[in-house]
């Protein structure tokens, strides 16, 4: 049974506009593919503006910024935390509904990292997100060697009013690896 945390829609309807990008994590070292995150995020953002004809420039800029920011954060996480050498793909999808965008990213994560992620998500879901954000910033400022800021999800919630959910699903053929899917919903 997959485990769900937060708000996660198991069956996304397919009768909407959507775009799905896939990446093979083993094919290029992360440093060399880092730039791809921004290019992919900007592409998703530009592509989606097509579906808002007649909107003001300010509204279009807002839509582009929101899609680009969230997609970039999801891709950065997926690239940073994916288990290497397991030959499982990384993907990001963006679905457009009448009233919202739904982002869905999936990537393979090693069990040890899954435990850490789950603890963080549980903290996120039971805290006041703004207070937790400020607390993390203050804590990060005292930790020079911290490589993971832990701010991506919190900025999505606080600054973009996003709703987040996660699904953890074990692969049948590789029991030490878990497919982590992250869903981000943003109202239009």
């Amino acid at each position: 049974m997959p485990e769900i945390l937060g708000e996660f829609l198991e069956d996304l309807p397919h009768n909407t506009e959507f775009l799905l990008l896939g990446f093979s994590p083993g094919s290029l070292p992360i440093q060399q593919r880092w730039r791809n995150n921004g290019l992919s995020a900007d592409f998703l953002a530009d592509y989606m503006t097509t579906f808002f004809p007649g909107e003001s420039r300010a509204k279009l800029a807002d839509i582009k910024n929101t899609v680009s920011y969230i997609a970039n954060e999801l891709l950065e996480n997926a690239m940073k935390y994916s288990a290497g050498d397991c030959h499982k793909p990384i993907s990001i999808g963006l679905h457009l509904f009448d009233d919202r965008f739904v982002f869905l990213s999936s990537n393979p994560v090693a069990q040890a990292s899954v435990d850490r992620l789950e603890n963080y998500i549980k903290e996120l879901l039971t805290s006041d997100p703004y207070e937790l954000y400020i607390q993390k910033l203050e804590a990060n400022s005292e930790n020079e060697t911290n490589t993971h800021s832990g701010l991506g999800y919190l900025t999505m919630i606080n600054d973009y009013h996003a709703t987040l959910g996660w699904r953890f699903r074990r692969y049948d053929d590789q029991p030490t690896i878990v497919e982590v899917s992250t869903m981000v919903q943003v109202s239009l």
Partner: protein
Amino acid sequence: MDNQEMLEVKDEDYRVWHDTNNRVVFCEGSLRLGGAEEYAPITQILEQSIAHPPIELTLDLMGLEFLNSSGINMLSKFVIKARQKAGVKITVKGSEAIPWQGKSLKNLQRLMPSLVLEIS
């Protein structure tokens, strides 16, 4: 130790530089570096800019189209450092035309209540 101050870092996507005469640090382009280590040269420019207080520094972000969460972390760390030093005043200039700035920069004021935020 008086090393040559690093006044500029850039690559094809961004440029950060310190105009020492006018006490302004400019950030331009898109910053999506991978984490604190990759942001270290920019952190260094920012920290040098407030190394000798009293100082009134302007952080001009009007050309910064994109900043990822690691970059937000870097700016927040800098603002906390500035808060901890006596005699440092900071004004952050942003652009209304760049949506992330209206959404995310106000959080810097929470970290440093004396920080002046001008979004125009």
